[in-house]
């Protein structure tokens, strides 16, 4: 047990080294190796493979694939859909979380189950539900069509099913946090004379911000990456109703493998942008929120 042989000579480290046995070192190294190895196989390797394939026809071919009008249209559609769906789901998730986490009312369990329903439904079924409900052969869809509104096989349909499959992400995260923080602070705020809006803005919202942020990240990732449900309502019109994931599939089936992976790398890039946004937002909120929490 001579853990002092590692050259670090300050009294503190020496003491700590003695406390940590060699067998524990092995366990620690083994655990880290398993963790890193797993991460490598599950995350790093596939991403590396995507990038290698994407550039397999050379850098100019990569940028040509990205700059194609159909790819740019798919990119616009995907970002536009997420930009529409995520804020809607944030508002909805906060409202639902506030109602369910902070109040008791009849039918609360039912409402919670309804919110979680999209998690339980296969994405393909989600898409078909909308084709049946608002497709042109349904009563509502027929009426919309008569008034010149196209929903299914056009971008509103894509936004709608995306909202459906992603809407539980924010709500679920926020509800959990709201339930766990309890109502004491809100009650104190109200007793001290705060209005409902003030209570929500200055007390509730700061307390759920991590849950909210996490929900937004998940919601955004799913909104950009959704394939099954969107595939059913998209109609696959190139340059119009193909989202990025659908466009990747189309390119792949065209035997244009490197282009398919180039566009995949765009999706990876979007994910990275989301993560960077999250980290910087976290840092800012932490700096600003130090007094409050």
């Amino acid at each position, binding site marked *: 047990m001579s853990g002092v042989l590692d050259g670090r000579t300050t009294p503190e480290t020496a003491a700590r080294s003695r406390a940590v046995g060699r067998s524990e070192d092995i366990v620690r190294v083994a655990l880290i190796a398993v963790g890193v190895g797993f991460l490598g196989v599950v995350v790093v390797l596939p991403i590396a493979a995507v990038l290698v394939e994407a550039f397999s026809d050379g850098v100019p071919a990569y940028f040509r694939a990205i700059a194609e009008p159909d790819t740019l249209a798919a990119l616009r559609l995907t970002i536009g859909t997420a930009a*529409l769906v995520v804020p809607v789901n944030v508002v909805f998730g906060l409202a639902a979380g506030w109602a369910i986490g902070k109040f008791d009312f009849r039918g609360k369990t039912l409402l919670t189950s309804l919110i979680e329903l999209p998690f339980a439904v296969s994405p393909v079924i989600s898409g078909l539900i909308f*084709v049946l409900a608002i*497709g*042109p*052969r349904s009563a509502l*869809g027929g009426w*919309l*069509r008569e*008034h*010149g*509104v*196209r*929903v*299914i*096989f*056009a*971008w*509103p349909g894509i*936004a709608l099913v995306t909202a459906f499959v992603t809407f539980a992400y924010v709500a679920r995260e926020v509800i959990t946090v709201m339930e766990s923080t309890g109502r004491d602070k809100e009650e104190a705020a109200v007793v001290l004379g705060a209005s409902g809006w003030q209570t929500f803005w200055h007390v509730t919202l700061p307390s759920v911000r991590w849950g909210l942020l996490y929900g937004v990240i998940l919601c955004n990732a799913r909104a950009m990456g959704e394939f099954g449900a969107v595939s059913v309502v998209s*109609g*696959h*019109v*190139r*340059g*119009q109703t193909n989202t990025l994931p659908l466009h990747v599939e*189309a390119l792949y*089936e*065209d*035997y244009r493998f490197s282009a398919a992976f180039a566009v995949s790398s765009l999706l990876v890039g979007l994910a990275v942008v989301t993560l960077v946004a999250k980290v910087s937002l976290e840092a800012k909120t932490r700096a600003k929120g130090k007094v409050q929490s």
Partner: protein
Amino acid sequence: MLVVSCSKKEANDANASSGSGAAATVAPVEVEILNVSYDPTRELYEAIDASFAKSYAEKTGVKVTVRQSHGGSGKQARAVIDGLEADVVTLGLAYDVDAVARAGLIAPDWASRLPNRSTPFTSTVVFLVRRGNPKTIRDWDDLVKPGVAVITPNPKTSGGARWNYLAAWGYAKRKAGGDDAHARDFVARLYKNVPVLDSGARGATTTFVERGLGDVLIAWESEALLAKSRPGGEKFDVVVPSTSIVAATPVSVVDKVADKRGTRAVADAYVQFLFTPEAQAIAAKEFYRTVEPAPADPPFARVALFTIEDEFGGWDKAQAAHFADGATFDQIYKPGN
């Protein structure tokens, strides 16, 4: 959200109606039509659309953009029935065009509106094997031998796969002097040699070509020759059987949609364009057999060809007897044996 879509739609409508109106008058305008097609025609229609746009602009001064949607033939027909606004359908089999017609979107006499039963090009069913043909596949009989792994997609979900199935059936039936029981036994043995049933034709080709599964791919001649012409194609040989089927891929204007959108003139011109020497030459270059003799006709192998009308009495009968739920295919195919 709907408000925005509404205004966008009105803009589209204005565009489309001014387009058809102006086709008769002076100002050059833009019209957009949608061609809903099946899976393996992506390269073909990419080339044809560009050529059509050029020729139509020269004749009428109208700038046409042809949008494309591709997917499994049956799935695409379904989408059109469910409201995908296709001005034109170019599908893998007449049965799927009939399905759209039955939904009331296409006139029942669609097949007689254009030459050759509204079929501008055809293909046939051949085999793609590994280089040097290590399993010595020469004809359909070699596909039912033990130890030969055959790749073909699922005829329940893929139109292309139905042609494959019917080609095998027709071969066996003809060989046995018209005996359906013999054909049934032959096809059952063939599907015993199929390790995976992909859901679509392109998926099956990718399974064989990219993933290296199987000894022989039953494929359309156009798909086989395309795979052979691509980089890496020297790893495969095309084997042409003694007898095969004419895979007829018909086209039609979707009357309801074209009339509603005011794109009738362009849509009609588009489907008629498919029968012109220009389009036929492009089809030949993309390895489709042309109905009009084309200048650049590639040297297609000679095969004894039969049609679905000859051997099966048309698609309605073939579908009911072979591919409906509980029909022959369901009876003979048991996964995992």
